[in-house]
């Protein structure tokens, strides 16, 4: 085969591969939109975004689940971010070289724990423990937030660590050279300079928390109403889809697709937000 035709072939193969990926993504969006269309047409947006889920009465409101998704994700971030950030700071600033590798491996392994395992631990240990402490059923937003925190910590730690390491050493040198302490340098120079990367880390963590299904499903409820406290059952968008998918038809089934579409749009919005806050590839305005 001549080299020119080989070049041509390689280009074609890569082009086809790229098209398949793009087409696949487009089809996901297309099918989600198409399948949720009956729900929007027959039930209407007002019904879909109401707070009442009662298919028998023709009520397909997803507000409870949307709120469940947002609160559990927010709770997970609230608990996970400070820990993850502290860990990233420890790894980049404090840990001696040798233990740095050890802790990094530990974080990576934490990222590799299957979500069903975390869900199982949550179901068998965390929920009973919360039940004993609070006197309520135990499952709910608190339990889900704790599980989600464990799940987002590796993501946030790894990306914040990269962001902190990407801050030019000259910044810290300048700060130390005017007599700042390590802590002052970390707090006033390093963290602000790494902020875009850290924000991106938190948003990616949020993405993971919003999309997580199995582990949350095992500790969240179930109940299709607003919870009365952090320790009473409710649902998220993902867990609701999971519970209903087997036995729904018609508009009810279509409304599940609508929930999926909302999740999809939420995820897309987060990705755009990441690009916005981090300005594409991390930039720190370094003078070269």
């Amino acid at each position, binding site marked *: 085969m001549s080299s020119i035709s080989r070049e041509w072939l390689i280009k074609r193969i890569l082009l086809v591969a790229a098209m398949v990926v793009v087409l696949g993504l487009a089809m996901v969006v297309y099918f989600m939109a198409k399948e949720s269309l009956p729900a929007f047409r027959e039930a209407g947006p007002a019904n879909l975004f109401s707070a009442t889920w009662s298919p028998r009465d023709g009520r397909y409101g997803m507000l409870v689940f949307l709120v469940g998704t947002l609160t559990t994700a927010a709770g997970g971030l609230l608990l996970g971010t400070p820990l993850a950030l502290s860990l990233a700071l420890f790894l980049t600033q404090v840990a*001696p070289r040798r233990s740095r590798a050890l802790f990094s491996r530990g974080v990576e392994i934490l990222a590799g724990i299957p979500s069903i395992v975390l869900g199982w631990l949550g179901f068998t240990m965390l929920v009973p423990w919360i039940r004993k402490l609070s006197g309520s059923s135990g499952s709910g937003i608190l339990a889900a937030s704790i599980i989600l925190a464990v799940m987002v910590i590796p993501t946030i730690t790894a990306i914040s660590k990269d962001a902190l390491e990407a801050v030019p050493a*000259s910044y810290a040198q300048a700060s130390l*050279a005017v007599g700042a302490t390590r802590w002052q340098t970390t707090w006033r120079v390093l963290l*602000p300079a790494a902020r875009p990367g850290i924000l991106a880390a938190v948003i990616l963590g949020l993405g993971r928390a919003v999309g997580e299904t199995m582990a949350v499903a095992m500790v969240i409820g179930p109940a299709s109403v607003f919870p009365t406290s952090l320790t009473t059952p409710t649902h998220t968008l993902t867990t609701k889809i999971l519970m209903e998918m087997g036995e729904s038809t018609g508009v009810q089934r279509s409304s599940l697709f609508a929930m999926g579409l909302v999740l999809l749009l939420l995820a897309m919005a987060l990705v755009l937000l990441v690009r916005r806050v981090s300005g594409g590839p991390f930039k720190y305005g370094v003078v070269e």
Partner: protein
Amino acid sequence: MSVISFVSGKVRGRRPGSVGAEGAAPSQNKRAGAESEAIPGEGAKFRLRDVSLRYGNRPVLEGITMDIPERRITAVIGPSGCGKSSFLRCLNRMNDLVEGCRLEGLVLLDGEDIYAREYDVTALRRRVGMVFQRPNPFPKTVYENVAFGPRIFGIKDRETLDGIVELSLKRAALWEEVKDKLREPALALSGGQQQRLCIARVLAVEPEVILLDEPCSALDPIATQRIEDLLAELKENYTIVIVTHNMQQAARVSDYTAFFLIESQGEPGRLVEFGDTATIFTAPADPRTERYITGRFG
């Protein structure tokens, strides 16, 4: 490697008994410069006695003994890799940040051993400011860059800070150019302006000594000229030590010149000759100095 890992190198000072008395009585030291290293008619800001520096197993400097005169500009010249920058970093203990770094000998600032165990490094760095090879302003506004040091030292009052920022920028000959841009990002300034901003940032904490590590190597000739003019003004009030690759610059700006040289690869850098700049450049005592300044090597 994240250079800023705060795993400090073990920089330990040793205080030989013979010179200990010197460190203990700083007031007598000013005039007691009767040793051969002292420059006649000049008070010494820094006194170095037999200073050696190693990074791990690699010797970087050896046997450096010299006095750095107060309120004068001392230039440090020499070929690449002769330890000029490492020498400079001995004076504000920035070498502490290099893992495996060890210093032996005595470095006295106003008669005080700055490597003594109980010596406060942050206070030292406040007194001995440093300007780096590349302008390295923080990714903050012009104002916040200059106010950084004072804020670190606990000044919160708005008016006081405004005053310090203005005064420091004026001293750094930058005020006229940036007085309407104080709230703009420092990184939007030109390279030369950024370097003067870094000088202003150092001046804002009222240092006594300013160390400059090839401050003009990333600048064009006009920006370089402005920095050199600025140094000439600053020496009225500050002791200045400048490392430079550029011998014309050393000849133009400095009062005293130290010539460092590394004999061969793997050897530590040594101080070959130190004296007033005119003598070093016109009638050097050491043939190696002459070879270097006439451009025969390096």
